[in-house]
């Protein structure tokens, strides 16, 4: 009879191993929270879309910078600068100096262009050809073309130019590629701006998810009250909301990833056409595996932080009345 069944175990509830319990409990809560998201597909999609766009903006901007750096680093020769030596310096002295400079750690290579070679080149390229033959002596100095090492920053580059310009043999240092340095300096600034912007957007995501969870908690106020009344701890009540935050973050970052990849796909053709015009091949850098993982990780982390804040804050207020 029912009676014996009841009396055979007035023992308290025993549960299986703590680890398996913990795991199965989380799995079932996770599934339950995901189910809740799918039961309100439109509302969930809106939130996920907002998160995705918010994540996609800094991710795409970062990708843009990465590509800009990669393309501009191909312009190594654009960083070259020329040192025009004083007229009185002999060709052998100039060659010695070139070797000396080439030994510097921050210099990759030094090209020596003798005054004679320079004149020869000028004759061919300028079109003055014959007219120059009438010059009694070569007006051009010996020139050293310095290629800085790849490890140079914008600052060390300026320092290098100053140092070499101060050499007694040097007459004029001519940097005809300052715009590349400016470009890199601008990229540096933009990059930092992106970091700041991304941090602000991260805060925005925390607020968005936190607010969503807050509304969810309000809607389930009665349910929370009842579960607390029959012995649920704050942790138990909070768990499904944490999982909701997890899913929002995960789905949001997955969608962000899709948006970025789709953007790359759309840009592929125009970039190829542009590269064709310059008769060069530009390889577009995509997100690396590490970057994809960190995008997902950031999304999930923001989701968890947002939901944790909201749940912890509002959970305490809901007590059985």
């Amino acid at each position, binding site marked *: *009879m*029912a*009676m014996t*069944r*009841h*009396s055979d*175990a*007035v*023992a*308290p*509830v025993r*549960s*299986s191993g*703590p680890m*398996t*319990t913990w795991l*199965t*409990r989380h799995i*079932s809560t996770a599934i339950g929270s995901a189910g809740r998201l799918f039961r309100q597909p439109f509302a969930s999609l809106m939130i996920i879309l907002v998160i995705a766009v918010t994540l996609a903006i800094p991710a795409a901007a970062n990708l843009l910078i990465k590509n800009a750096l990669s393309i501009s680093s191909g312009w190594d020769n654009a960083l070259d600068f020329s040192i025009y030596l004083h007229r009185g310096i002999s060709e052998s002295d100039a060659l010695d100096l070139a070797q000396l400079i080439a030994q510097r750690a921050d210099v990759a290579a030094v090209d020596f262009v003798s005054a004679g070679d320079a004149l020869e080149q000028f004759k061919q390229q300028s079109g003055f050809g014959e007219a120059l033959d009438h010059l009694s002596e070569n007006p051009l100095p010996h020139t050293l073309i310095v290629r800085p090492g790849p490890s140079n920053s914008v600052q060390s580059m300026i320092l290098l130019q100053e140092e070499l310009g101060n050499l007694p043999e040097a007459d004029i240092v001519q940097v005809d590629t300052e715009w590349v340095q400016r470009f890199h300096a601008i990229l540096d600034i933009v990059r930092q701006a992106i970091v700041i912007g991304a941090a602000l957007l991260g805060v925005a995501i925390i607020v968005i998810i936190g607010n969503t969870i807050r509304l969810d908690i309000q809607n389930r106020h009665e*349910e929370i009250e*009842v*579960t*607390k*009344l*029959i*012995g*649920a*701890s*704050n942790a*138990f009540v909070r768990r499904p909301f944490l999982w909701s935050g997890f899913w929002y973050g995960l789905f949001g970052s997955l969608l962000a990833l899709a948006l970025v990849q789709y953007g790359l796909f759309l840009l592929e053709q125009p970039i190829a056409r542009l590269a064709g015009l310059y008769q060069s091949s530009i390889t577009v850098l995509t997100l690396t595996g590490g970057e994809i993982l960190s995008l997902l990780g950031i999304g999930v982390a923001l989701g968890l932080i947002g939901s944790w804040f909201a749940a912890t804050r509002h959970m305490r207020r809901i*007590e*059985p*009345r």
Partner: protein
Amino acid sequence: MIRLEDVTKRFPGGQEALSGLSFSIDKGEMVFVTGHSGAGKSTLLRLIALIDRPTSGQVIVDGQNTRRVTRRMIPAYRRQIGMVFQDHKLLYDRPVFDNVALPLIIAGMGYREAGRRVRPALEQVGLLHKEKQRPETLSAGEQQRVGIARAIVTRPKLLIADEPTGNLDPDLSLEVMRIFRRFNEVGVTLLIASHDISLIDRLGCRRIALEEGRLARTTDDDIDAGYSSSEAGLDPEAWR
């Protein structure tokens, strides 16, 4: 099982819901708390369930002074007690089975394992065949029985009920009381707040009558009469 020592509960407004109340309930007793609304019945149960704290005095439940139960310990404390409410307090977004399983899930039991306890509990209240239905499709009496199944599924030693028959007609009320009586017979201590004097008289259990937060009279002499049942015109077999 329950002992109150000089318990006073004063609300912020200043009015006293309970004034120096003392009584004790032994293990295995089935006791009714009666009184007009506002006499302090609900307040008393709320103190036992730790929804409220007394202004002064001691509430001791199963040897545990509730004063020493901190906020963090409240969930574990509540899990030892079965609670039945006048408004059932079921969750209407899930089927009967899930409602009854909830205390087990809260206690950390797996879903399948919980099932092995939920079905006997539902069987005891005669609702096994409705486990898949949603609470709103059930009648008030059936919903209350789901609430009872949920309260007893963890096999608590103590069950408290606040006006469990408040919304039920006499037949359903009797049915609910029969279920309570069956638990009592297997050793569960019950404390039931009710104003349904005629029904209580028929059951003949001990009564703690409250009047303006004080003990009005304890009808100890009714206990014997209650258990013999014949006086109330009830055959003991009828309870089963």
